[in-house]
Structures are given as structure tokens and as C-alpha cells.
């Protein structure tokens, strides 16, 4: 079965995007990528801390076959996000950029309007823009018009593992979006990733739940299987739920006169 995901100029067979944050050791990232077969992974850009000593770069742990998805974390305005995106590209990280503009420092929820403005600028500059957003149909349509390559509505706050709190709105975005929909943030269990895919999401991004598991490598494989399971269920067209019961064995009275 050829069921590929296309984002910008690239095509992916995996529908699980992963992240590099919060791993107890960078050396887990390689095995996790292998186990999860994830083909795209996020990284962040930060000022060097000279006092930190010379540990090896995160990039050294990501095979070339995996597409880098730099995020603009730390940006509180469209301008800051644009600047980070440009630096990331010039630093050789390629065309992909995850726009993350956050002004709410308590729940780390994205600022949709600043995100939209950054998307307009960066799409014009040829970036493949993946904007992280509050699930909002109106903004989703505007991001399409602004040239985004996909929309990334959140399931629940970053790192909360609360799953698809925004289920109802995400479903409406999936049903109306002309762009691929990647559910990002808050997915804490494989069942939640599978549910997003069953709803028709094109992909999910999972970082915290994998990185903070006792066994991140096994967790990565678990999420990969769940994403595939959810996708296959979507393609296999399962029946919907019924109010009443439907016997799975014949109801003919048996051994009874």
C-alpha cells in the first residue's frame, strides 16, 4: 500500500513526527528514531552557554535520513519567529520550520495571530511552514491562504500528556482543512495518537511522552505502531458506534424447545 504524507516538497512514509526535547540522554535519540521509524524530528535553537562545557551537538544524534524540523520556540512575536527561522535555514537546517509563538507563559499556548503573521512572511521566503496553533477553524483557513504546508493544532498543553482535550475542534479542522493536519502537543499515550489518526489526522507529533518514558525507545516504537494502527483503521473504514447491542453470535434460541 502506498500511503504517503507530503509536506512541502518532501514525501514521508511515517506519520509520526518526534522531538528532541527532554531526553535523559541524547544518546537515546538515535535508537528512538530507529525504533519509531520517525522521519522528521524537531530541534530548538538557543544561545551557547560557554559555562556549559562542550557536550556534543544534538545534530550529531540525528541521521541524515531524518528531516530536521527546527522550531521557533522562545519567540513571543512574529518577528522573533521569523528571525529564528532565517537563522535556522542559513545554518543549514533546510526549508522546514515549525512556527511556535507563545506569549502565554503559564500554559504555553500559542498566539494564533502572531503565528499567522510569521507564516505569511516565511511562506513567501520559500520555507515549508508548519504552524503550531490553537485549534481554530478560521485561523486554519487563513494559514492555508497564507501558504502554510500544514496546520498543527494542539491536543492539549505542551508536555501535559492530557491527550485530545480539543478533540471536537480538531475534528472540525480535519473535516474542513485543505491542508494536512498534524496534531501536536499533549499526546501522552499511543491510544490518543491512534484516536487522532482514526479521526482522519494526517500525522501526529509526539515528544514529551516518548522522551520521558522509562523506556523511550520502546515508547517510540509503541507510538509508531499506534499511529499506523489509527491510520489503517481510518483507511479500513470501520463501522460507527450503535446505540443498541448487535449480536456477534446468532440469536436463534438454542437447545431449547
Amino acid at each position, binding site marked *: 500500500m502506498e500511503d504517503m504524507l507530503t509536506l512541502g516538497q518532501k514525501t514521508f512514509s511515517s506519520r509520526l513526527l518526534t522531538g528532541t526535547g527532554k531526553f535523559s540522554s541524547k544518546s537515546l535519540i538515535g535508537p528512538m528514531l530507529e525504533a519509531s521509524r520517525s522521519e522528521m524530528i524537531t530541534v530548538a*535553537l538557543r544561545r551557547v552557554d560557554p559555562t556549559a562545557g562542550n557536550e556534543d551537538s544534538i545534530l550529531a544524534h540525528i541521521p541524515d535520513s531524518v528531516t530536521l524540523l527546527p522550531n521557533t520556540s522562545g519567540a513571543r512575536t512574529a518577528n522573533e519567529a521569523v528571525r529564528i527561522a532565517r537563522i535556522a535555514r542559513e545554518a543549514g537546517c533546510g526549508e522546514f520550520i515549525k512556527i511556535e509563538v507563545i506569549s502565554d507563559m503559564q500554559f504555553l499556548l500559542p498566539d494564533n495571530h502572531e503565528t499567522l503573521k510569521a507564516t505569511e512572511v516565511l511562506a513567501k521566503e520559500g520555507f515549508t511552514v508548519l504552524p503550531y496553533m490553537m485549534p481554530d477553524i478560521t485561523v486554519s483557513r487563513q494559514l492555508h491562504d497564507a501558504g502554510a504546508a500544514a496546520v498543527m493544532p494542539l491536543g492539549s498543553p505542551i508536555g501535559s500528556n492530557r491527550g485530545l482535550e480539543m478533540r471536537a475542534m480538531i475534528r472540525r479542522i480535519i473535516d474542513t482543512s485543505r491542508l494536512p493536519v498534524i496534531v501536536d502537543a499533549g499526546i501522552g499515550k499511543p491510544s490518543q495518537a491512534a484516536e487522532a489518526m482514526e479521526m482522519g489526522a494526517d500525522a501526529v507529533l509526539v515528544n514529551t511522552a516518548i522522551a520521558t518514558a522509562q523506556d523511550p525507545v520502546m515508547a517510540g516504537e509503541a507510538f509508531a505502531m499506534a499511529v499506523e494502527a489509527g491510520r489503517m483503521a481510518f483507511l479500513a473504514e470501520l463501522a460507527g458506534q450503535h446505540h443498541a447491542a448487535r449480536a456477534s453470535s446468532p440469536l436463534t434460541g438454542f437447545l431449547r424447545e
Partner: protein
Amino acid sequence: MKITLNGSVAETDSPDLAALVTAKGIDPCALVIEHNSRVIKQEHWGTTPVREGDVIELLNFVGGG
């Protein structure tokens, strides 16, 4: 001379970016340098002079979601 390095004023006598990186004892591999709002590729660090008042950002990629 005085420059703005990663957001704070710093004193340096490094003539160019390559020297600055060495002076700071930073591993050049995977280092990203923004010099007066322009990103400078590694091969040009040695030929990019550091001047009074320059705004320099020394950046690298870290884990992020």
C-alpha cells in the same frame, strides 16, 4: 573593544570571529554565528573582522519539541 555578545556587553580583543570562538573556548562544530543580524558560514569566520559595537550571537541547536 566592547561588543554585544548573546545579549550582554562583553570585552574582547579577538580580531575576527574564529579568534572569538577560540577565545571563548567554544566547540566550533555545530556552532551558529549571527554577526550584526547576518549568519556567517563557518568558512568565513576567519575573514570576518570583529569591530567595536558589533552585535554577535553564538547559537547552537538543542533538544526541543
